[in-house]
């Protein structure tokens, strides 16, 4: 590396990311709702991508970026699962009949009086 301070630059960038990670971690611990936790998880995922990318440069092994690509590609699958789960309580079907009458309110009737 021609630039004499490259390691220091990468290291401080990694440090900044770790600081952000700690903030996201705090949010995930504080909650209050589960969705805040999911949001923190998402944000944490992006931070991990960045940390891995920078770690590759810190060690002079930029081919580690493959890992970052994995995260960038499939990280949102979990969130989609959350969406589906929180909409239907199941990952399976949009029209899955629920057998738990007490907890599932009636579907609103659209019929005209």
């Amino acid at each position, binding site marked *: 590396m021609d630039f004499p301070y490259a390691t220091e630059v990468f290291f401080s960038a990694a440090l900044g990311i770790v600081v952000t990670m700690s903030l996201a971690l705090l949010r995930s611990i504080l909650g209050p709702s589960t969705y805040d936790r999911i949001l923190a998880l998402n944000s944490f995922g992006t931070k991990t*991508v960045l940390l891995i990318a920078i770690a590759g440069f810190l060690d002079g092994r930029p081919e580690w970026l493959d890992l970052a690509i994995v995260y960038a590609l499939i990280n949102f699958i979990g969130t989609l699962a959350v*969406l589906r789960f929180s909409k239907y309580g199941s990952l399976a079907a949009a029209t899955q009949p629920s057998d738990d009458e007490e907890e599932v309110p009636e579907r609103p009737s659209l019929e005209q009086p």
Partner: protein
Amino acid sequence: MSLALAIVGTVFLAGGVFFCVVGGIGLLRLPDFYSRCHAAGMTDSAGAMGILVGLCFFAEPLVIVKLLTVVGFIWLSSVVSTHALVKAAYARGIKLENPRVRDWTVRPAKTAAAEAAGDVPKAAKVPSLDLAAMADSDADAGSTSGGEQGLAQSHGAESESESESESESESESESESESESESESESESESDDSEESRT
């Protein structure tokens, strides 16, 4: 030359880290879930781009391609996951905290009352009433309180149809717009039937 590149890269990295940290602070400090989503989104887009593009200035050509790929995929996937997340949260009735912001998908009580009186075709009425019943509406609370009443009324005074269309365009939340769901009701129920019969 290479030194200049490195300096540019450092500037990008610094900007990216800045956005990341600011986004993190926002994630921690902002009052409600939706504004936290905004903060997190900024981290994902601006912060990630800054850092990864900054790294490009230190890298070889193939690695640059990989870095830009990561940027592209993060932009696609994190935006979509935030979208999905907000939809899920809204469907669960996670509330806005800021009293000045009105949830446009929830109809103020006045409009609903006007509808009940028969000003608006009833077919259009039902789904949005469901929404109001579902999510505890801040707007309803706001319209009864003093400061918000003016706002709510002024919007209520505008034609119903406008607030209607706005509420639809604001968020394509749970249910589709009324007209669409009406036109699709036939095919949809058919497909439901077929699905049930199959299982």
